[in-house]
């Protein structure tokens, strides 16, 4: 009887621990599955339309990639070097900047972050309360086909001979 009072609680504690670890792992797995699924769906749509069921989970990453900035600088430097001798009026530079600038800006560093958080209840024997569990996923935004006719129209509008 005395043994039972010691052994039974210990075994119950161990059982609760195993169940706790299992539940925690399953919850974590579930959260990461959700984050992964939303991230890939959002990425496939070029990060333009939030897929159903993923509201508040996915968003475009706002952190500026330093490597992307370096590439931008290199391209800018290369362009300046290329047009330096030919472009005395600055019109060529204006055309390239106006047309390619926004595209170059968008070309590097467009990515998304998916974050799913859920409250997970601790068993009372471990102090109770809740613990916030998070699943995260980071991915680059894929591309969608674009129609180039608008670009061409812009080119015509920009270029006005003197």
């Amino acid at each position: 009887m005395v043994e039972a009072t010691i052994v039974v609680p210990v075994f119950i504690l161990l059982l609760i621990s195993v169940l706790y670890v299992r539940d925690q792992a399953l919850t974590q797995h579930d959260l990461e599955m959700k984050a992964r699924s939303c991230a890939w769906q959002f990425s496939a749509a070029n990060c333009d339309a939030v897929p159903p069921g993923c509201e508040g989970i996915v968003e475009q990453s706002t952190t500026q990639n330093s490597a992307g900035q370096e590439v931008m600088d290199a391209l800018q430097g290369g362009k300046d070097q290329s047009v330096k001798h030919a472009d005395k009026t600055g019109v060529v530079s204006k055309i390239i900047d106006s047309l390619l600038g926004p595209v170059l800006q968008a070309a590097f560093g467009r990515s998304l972050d998916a974050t799913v958080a859920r409250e997970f209840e601790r068993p009372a024997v471990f102090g109770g309360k809740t613990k916030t569990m998070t699943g995260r996923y980071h991915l680059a935004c894929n591309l969608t086909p674009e129609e180039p006719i608008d670009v061409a129209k812009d080119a015509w509008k920009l270029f006005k001979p003197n």
Partner: protein
Amino acid sequence: MKRPGTVPDDRGAVMVIALFLAVFLLGLLYYVVGTTQTVFFREHLQDTADGAALSGAVMHARSMNLIVLINIVMAALLAILVTIKLIEGLAIIGMVIAAALAWFTGGSTLAAIPPLKTAQADMNAAYQQVQPPIFAALKALHAASDLVSSVAPSAADAVVLADITAKGQPAGSRGIASGTRLTLPVSDDTFPELCGRAGKFPIDLAKEALGGVPGVSEIMGALDDPMHDMTKSLSEWFCGEGDDGNGGGKGGGQSRPPSYKRDEKRAYPRMDLAVRCENEHIDSSGSLTLGAGNTSPTCEESKRFEDAALPDQNTGRCQAGHDCSADGPYEQRVAKARLDCDPALSPRPSYYLYLQREGSVPYRWTGKLWQRLTPTFGEPQRRETRKDAVSNPPCGSKLVHPFVAEGYQTTVRTSNDVTEVQPVCSKEVPPPAPSTRNRPEVGHIETVPITEVMHILGCQKTETITVQVSNGKTAGSDSSSDSGSSSNSKSPKRVTDGATLGDENFQIRALIQGDSDTLAADRLVQLTIWNQEEPASDNLHVLQALSGYSVAQAEYFYDGSAARGEWMWNMKWRARLRRFRMPEGEAFTAIQTAWRTALGSGCDVLNTLSRIGDLVVH
């Protein structure tokens, strides 16, 4: 009647069993935690690899779309000249018709000739006026597309690397996503082709503007191809001269080849053969002209040497079955590594892989001083510094804050005896001189610990390199090899000849390395083989070596059914994940070189991966 003392007392017996059971259950719980941790570790590593591969492919696809955009802008600009010439041509035709009809109309149509002549002259003047800036713009755009083509792959590497460092899981992971090419698979198209595309633009714009008028769309659609063919075949009249020979000419000014700088992580040691191999692929301008892989005899020899010299992935020592003599490849490599990885050099290495051994040194008291006796050492262990940050070196001067010991011995040995190694540095504190009161007896032995860095196996440095981009022939570009390109400084780009969608030219492979040594499951396994040798199974070593790595593959592709000629005229390049396949031939060499360079010379995952088929059946 029972006598006292003979009654069996079994109180507490269950307790013993329960104690064993509790320990067993506790071990089981630890095992569950360890397994969960390992599953998440593998999942995170694979997620990071998938993300890195896709990110690399997306960067390439974006760059292809950017070149498409540049092509379109070039055609749109040239369309201005084509339109002016078209009006001028119509004026000339009008004058000819008016002159021809004059015979029938008694000269009344001649009245139309002066205004047509004025219109033709005005158009000609406008053409002369706008041609120089348009040509200058074309040259700048051509140079920009050259730049994009050569910058994109390394930019993709850099962006992916930064992404892995910032967002990669598990924390501290590092990796690379690379393709087999140094540039995008594009080369120069012809100027007449650009002129032909420019000829379609007025038609396309008219179609767009008059899209609502019944029948116009069909008529314009029917004019599309004839207009393209006409302007292409009469490109000299419509678009002016195509090639100005030296990049100067009417367009005004010269389009000088741009260059850019980038930081690159390079693995050391760099053996002379590897340097010679690389030099064979550098042209007079300093550009790398390496394509998918190195195939020269020097490069083949270099590859054989590297394979023979590579330290064992687990022990860091000379691999069994290889030439381990004093002048063998392994020994040559470690000797070169000491020189190349000297922390006194600039730039200083940021990561070290080295061989360390620990032992003890007995000191005997002679009555006057401690006499050092021969030390004994345990098995040397392969060690590495932190991967996620710039680390201090294990050995070096006080200025570089070495964490093992001060000093850096650059010579491996003074004789031909392989076992006689001069450590790079060594840490040992001799016993203090005893006070006069507590002098030990003569012959007393005192033992102190010793740590020696036996060999530097490799290191990594971040170097700034300048990449020169030449017009139409960027690093690794296939421009020169394309037949019939008749390229010039104003031509658009096309997908290089020989590149087919889905082939190696468009594949990006990612390798991610995480630190699996900290996993609880591993510690549990180590616990179970307490004080015992690990099983000497070759297959086990292969699996162990791969436990901290994940690989993934993605590709960029043209998402449409248009013919090859249209691929660089529609912004439909996208990326997608693919099942990982082992690269073959030159692609294998190229990927292996990129991975070795990025993750250190000791990392030869690709060779190990190629053996996975022997162990796992899908």
